[in-house]
Structure formats: C-alpha cells, structure tokens
C-alpha cells in the first residue's frame, strides 16, 4: 500500500470510529428527534396568514426555495452554536477516557488523527443539518404551497451549511487542542467569537465591496444570506421566524438564491479558515503526552487559571470555614448536609467564584440601582452560566458517580439535590443584587430569583442529558445574548429583569419553566438509573 493510501486509511479509521461513537450517544439521537419535531414547531401554518419568511413585509409563499432559506437560515444558530457545544469533545473524550494513550502509541500521526476528528465532527454536524433539512422537506409536503423540489432544498442547505459544518468542526478542534481554550473559559470565549464573527459577516457582507474579508469571515453564511436576499428580491428588509409584524400585500414568490459561479466561489472562500484552524490545532496538539497534557495523569504543568485559583484558595477555605457545618458524628446523613457538601465542593473547585461573589456583594452595596440592574446583573448572569454548567455532570465526568450514588439518600434524590445545589450556588452570587433591587419593590427583583432558579434547573437538565457542561454553556449564553440584544422589547425574554421589562408574571413563567426543566431532568435520570440497575 502506498504511503498516501495508508495515511488516508488511518484518517478514515479515526473518522469512522469517532462518528460511530457520536451517533451512539443518546444526546445525538435526542437532538435528531427534536429537530424532526422542531421544524413543525417553528414554521407557522400559512392558512393563519403568518409566514416564516417575510420579504419587504410580504409573506413568502411556501415553496421549496422559501422554506429552504427560512429553515436553512437557522443553521448558523443551530450548528454554529448548539452544534459546537454538542459536537465538540472528540479529542477531549479520548484524553479523558485514556484511549488517547492507546492511539498515541500507534503509527497515526497528529495531522491524520486531527483530520479524522475534523471529518467526523463535520460529518456529525452535516447529519444534524440533513435531519433538519429532511424534516423541513416533510413539512413542505404537509403545509407547503408548491410542489416539493428536493434538489432546491439540498442546494440551499449545501451552500449555507457546508462551510458552516467544516468551520465549526475546525473551531471545535482548535478549542480542544489549545490547552488555554480547552476548559470552561474556552466554551465562553467561543460564544463571543461566534457572536463577533456573525455580526462582522453580516455587517461586511456587501458583495459589491470587492473585499475578501467578508467572505473569509462568513463561515456562518449570514453575510451570504443577507447579500443574496438583497440581490434576489431587491428588498431592504426581510425576517425569518415568527413575529416581525403582520404580513401585508399578496404573497411573494421567492425564486431562491442565485447559485452561479461567483456565489459558489464566495461560499468556497468561507472554507479558507478550515486549513488554518486545522494547522493551528496540529501545532497545539500534544499527542496525549502524559507529561504535557494539562489534565493527564502525569500532568506537571500549571495554567494561569490554576495559579490564580491557587492564590484564591486560602481565602475560599477561610470563608467556607465560617459556614457552620454541624460536624456531629452522631447525626444521621441528611439531604441538607449533602446539599451543603455539594455547594462547598463547587466553591472549592472554582475559587474564582468566591471572587465573583465578593465583587457582586460590593457592587450591589456601592452601585446605583440602575447600574446594578443594567450592568452588574447581566455580568453576573454571564458568570453564572459557566459556574453552574458542571454541577450535575461532574460526578460522572470525574468517575466518582458510583461513589456519590452509593451515599445515603442521594440516589433517589439526585436531581433535586443537584438542582438545589446549583440554585444555592447561583443565589450566593445573585442574592446581593436581588436584595438591592428589592429595595425598589419586590416585583422588579423577582426576575433575578426566577432566572437563577431557571438556570440552575436547565443546567441540571442538560448536564444529566449530555453528561457534559458544554451544551448548557452554549444554550445559557445564547439565551443571555438574545435577552441582552432584545433590550426588553419582548418582556418574556427579559428573563433576569435587567432591562426592567419583566414583571411578576414573567418571573412566574420562568419559575414554571424551571420546574419543568427540573421535572424533565428527574424523569430522565430516573429512566437511566432504572436501565443501569436493570
């Protein structure tokens, strides 16, 4: 066999195995099922006069081109954000499980291994996109207003989605292989990279400018989508999704994108970051070297974050020592004691949280009410998301789940325990703000409480469902981003109340959502435990 053939064989083996593992994860199957249902929930029935795509205020007729653009236009959010958090972790899983040590002793080169992982990540995201495409096509058969044209659907999805799946897979790889990006900080950073690139691509996406940068940065396809809509329809405004005001005038027959040579070249240019990101990943990849891996068994390196946390650890210990523990050996184990132990673990694991809590306290005491609501609160909620992300899944990830589940009272109450632990942790951070805002009326402070409880319950649900913290980080930050940008226009989206738009009923709605998330987590965990125990 030629050297190239052997090399391709190794790339194929890595990709095939990784894909196999990804598709056997329950989270992938759940996502595919949700996507199949999601299209039905997202696309309004045209008989109601509503439309998912409105161009210049007119509803677009439900043709294949219109539905493909409308549903495919959601791919940047679906794949660019949720896909990153749900799909990344192939290299980290090999590192965490120890399988990386087996692979590192084989002839597979770092470039081959990472290329295989990139292809698997892209394949996984492509399957998600295809599932969404298929459910959208099925939807057209049910509520469409023109015959289904599968080729049109696939062409629009391909032109929007191909650069997206490869770039997101390449970003995932980079964030897994660069040690400084591979933790929770990297998860948060990617969210901001995504929002900045999305905004840049949309802002710079004028095809007549002749500049290369908009094409190179437009992996999401947003810039391409905007410029095509302007080019094809001549309209200056369009909207995708529910809302956007009532449709006026006769339905518009959207002809679809102009997929000519320049348009395809433009999308092809959006693939340019892929080899660059892959090359950076190869440079950063340590081939599971136990003496260099930050999380390896033989790790001997200390990151800046560990140094910082090392400085804060004595302070954390002193503060935690002030909390009465009730260490009476004669007392029986109780839910409250288990809860206190888990909250303590959160703060001991991340002493940075103590610094955040103290800053929140100082800010709430010294800041003006408007500043506390409009600036401090959004900052705290953003900090809360990574802080709560692993509370429900850390036992599983650290291999101590069996120890935890053999503790008295914990197995039956695992989910309530974790929801309460995450809630209490969140309240330590947000309670000063809640109390400060309560001075101006309890009604305006309630959303702080409901948002904290909702995030705690959602973190538990997604942690239990995926056994990892990433998806919650993505979903939580996306919610935060949408609420921040909405600036209170939709009161229900002002979930923490920082825009001052949410009232007690909105808070009650989020509390109900928290209850539902907690109940779903409990049901899911219970089902898994029944399967495990047999």
């Amino acid at each position: 066999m030629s050297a190239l053939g052997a090399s391709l064989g190794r790339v194929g083996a890595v990709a095939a195995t990784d894909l196999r593992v990804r598709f056997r994860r329950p989270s992938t199957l759940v996502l595919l099922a949700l996507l199949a249902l999601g299209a039905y929930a997202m696309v309004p029935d045209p008989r109601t006069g509503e439309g998912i795509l409105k161009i210049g205020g007119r509803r677009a007729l439900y043709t294949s081109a219109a539905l493909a653009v409308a549903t495919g236009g959601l791919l940047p959010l679906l794949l660019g954000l949720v896909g990153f958090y749900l799909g990344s972790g192939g290299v980290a899983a090999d590192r965490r499980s120890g399988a990386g040590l087996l692979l590192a002793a084989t002839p597979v080169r770092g470039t081959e291994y990472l290329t295989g992982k990139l292809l698997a990540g892209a394949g996984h995201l492509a399957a998600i996109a295809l599932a969404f495409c298929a459910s959208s096509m099925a939807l057209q058969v049910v509520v469409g207003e023109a015959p289904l044209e599968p080729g049109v659907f696939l062409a629009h999805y391909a032109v929007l989605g191909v650069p997206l799946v490869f770039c997101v897979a390449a970003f995932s790889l980079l964030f897994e292989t660069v040690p400084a990006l591979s933790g929770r900080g990297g998860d948060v950073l990617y969210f901001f990279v995504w929002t900045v690139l999305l905004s840049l691509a949309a802002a710079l996406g004028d095809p007549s400018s002749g500049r290369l940068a908009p094409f190179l940065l437009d992996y999401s396809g947003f810039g391409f989508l905007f410029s095509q809509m302007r080019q094809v329809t001549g309209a200056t405004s369009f909207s995708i999704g529910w809302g956007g005001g009532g449709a006026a005038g006769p339905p518009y027959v959207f002809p679809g994108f102009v997929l000519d040579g320049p348009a395809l070249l433009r999308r092809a240019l959006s693939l340019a970051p892929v080899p660059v990101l892959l090359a950076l990943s190869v440079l950063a990849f340590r081939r599971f070297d136990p003496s260099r891996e930050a999380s390896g068994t033989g790790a001997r390196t200390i990151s800046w974050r560990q140094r910082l946390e090392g400085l804060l650890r004595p302070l954390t210990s002193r503060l935690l020592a002030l909390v009465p523990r009730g260490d009476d050996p004669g007392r029986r184990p109780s839910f409250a004691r288990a809860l206190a132990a888990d909250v303590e673990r959160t703060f001991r694991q991340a002493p940075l949280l103590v610094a955040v809590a103290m800053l929140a306290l100082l800010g709430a005491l010294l800041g003006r009410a408007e500043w506390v609501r409009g600036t401090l609160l959004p900052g705290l909620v953003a900090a809360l998301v990574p802080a709560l992300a692993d509370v429900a899944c850390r036992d599983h990830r650290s291999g101590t789940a069996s120890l935890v589940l053999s503790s008295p009272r914990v197995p039956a109450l695992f989910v309530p325990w974790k929801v309460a632990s995450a809630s209490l942790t969140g309240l330590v951070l947000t309670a000063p703000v809640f109390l400060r805002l309560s001075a101006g009326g309890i009604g305006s402070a309630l959303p702080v409480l409901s948002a904290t409880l909702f995030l705690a319950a959602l973190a538990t649900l997604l942690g239990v469902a995926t056994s990892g913290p990433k998806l919650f980080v993505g979903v939580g930050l996306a919610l935060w981003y949408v609420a921040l940008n909405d600036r209170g226009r939709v009161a229900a989206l002002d979930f923490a109340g920082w825009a001052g738009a949410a009232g007690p009923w909105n808070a009650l709605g989020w509390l109900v959502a928290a209850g539902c998330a907690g109940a779903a987590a409990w049901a899911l965990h219970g089902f898994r435990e029944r399967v495990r125990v047999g």
Partner: protein
Amino acid sequence: MLEVNGVTKRYRTGTFGVREMSLSASAGVLGLLGPNGAGKTTLMQMLATLSRPTSGTIRFRGRDVVAEPERVRERLGYLPQDFGVPDGLTAFELVDYVARLKGVKSRSRVLSLLETVGLGAVASRPVATFSGGMRQRVGIAQALVGDPELLIVDEPTAGLDPEERVRFRNLLSELSAGSLVVLSTHVVSDVESVATQIAVVKEGRLLSSGSPDALVRAATGLVWSAVLSPAEMERLRQRLVVSSSVLKADGFHLRIVAGEPPVPGAAPAEPDLEDAYLAAVRGLLPATAAA
C-alpha cells in the same frame, strides 16, 4: 535490541520522573520491578514514544525512538496502566480501530486475537459492559495487533484473576521469541517465571539489573531466617526488612533481608527473587548483577 542511555525525565516543576537511567535488553521479557511511584510508568511512556526524555537516548533495533517515533510505532504494541475505551465501542470495534491505525485490515486477525485472550464469544459486546479483567484482556488484544517487535505492558495483570494471570504470563513468554516484551509490575511473581531480565527501579533510578538467577545469586548471604517472640517482633518490626512472616506456636518465623545477621541466632537462608528485589530496593545489591 533496546538501548537506554542516560535517560532523564524532568518535569517543568523541577521534579524528576526518571534520572540518568541506562540499561539494555535483547529479545525476551524485560521485567521492570519497583514500588509505586518508582518511575516505571514514566520510563515505559518514553519507550512507547508517548513522551520524550529530557536528556539521554533510547534506541530500538538501532533506531532512535525520539528522532524516529513513527518508525518505532510501526513495530510497537502498548498496553498502558490506565486505558479507556470510547463510549459505546465493542471489543471488536476497539481492536479493529487500533488494527486499522497500524495498517492491519484483516478482520479475521482481529477476531483471532480476541479468541487468543478468551473474548471471542463476547467480541460484539460493548467494552463498557465488561468486568475489569475482561477490559484488561481487550487491552492486551489491541497491544498484540500487528505482531509487535516491541511490546510494552504496564501493570498488565491488574484486575486479572489467578488463572488469567497464568495464561497471560504464558502468552507473554510465547510472544517474546524474537521480540522484546517490557513488562512493568510491582508484583514479583508476575515476572518471576517469565522474565529473562529484570531491572529494579526506585525513585526514578535503576538500582539493579540482571537475569532473575543472577539477581537471586547476588542476594546470597543477604537473607536470614529467624524465630522471634511476639514481643521481640513488636520491638524490632520497624527496623527489619521482612520478606515473609508466619506465626506458629513458637513465635514468628521470619525471612529477613539484611547485610549481616539481623538478630542473634539468625541463620542464613536461600534467597528467592522476592528477597533479591527487597535487597535491591534497600540498596544491598550491586547495580548490575552478573548475567
């Protein structure tokens, strides 16, 4: 076949994993013996091209393991001390995965390896459902893919029951014909019957090496038998290096490793490999025992 010259592994924090270690081995089974934390795993990771030495050279069949790791990996089989399996993979899929990375495409060869380790009947079951011993056997099967010339197995018998241990030792012995098996353990009986050469390491340093017989011979005059009352035993417990202790009607019957008679009335005894190991760890054996 294998030449380790002045190898040192020093971490960024300044601690040493291995210090100035030199040894050579030809075809057969090289047993690395040492207490926990002795540097066995660090040395094996360097031999397996997983990490690089800070200084020194490692050569296998004349090839520099550090400069040409890919060439060595083509001939390498490795079973780490702690290894995992990606979620959901079956035993066959895992071994087949490693086989394809090594350029072995024969499914029948993969199946035959699983048969060899007694897992043929459960090849299509997820490894996550296996017992500790079964997982270890999957690890052994993947290490044997491609008929490696250098087989590195780190604490391979952990989790195996006594029958599996014996079967595994016999397997290693068969494999060592024409190739080199490096086996690390802190259980002397694991290497006693199969090793052609033994290296005793502690705190990252090579204390002693040689054939099992040579090590045992070198321990001649360092092993004593004595009978102590419980009171004497209590008094001397901390001071003596005891390789075995049996309580009988007349007191504790002890085998003691020491450079001179440890207690009045102690009689010289025939050393065995366990005594030789204890003597080496206590620094009582010469650095290189005669072959």
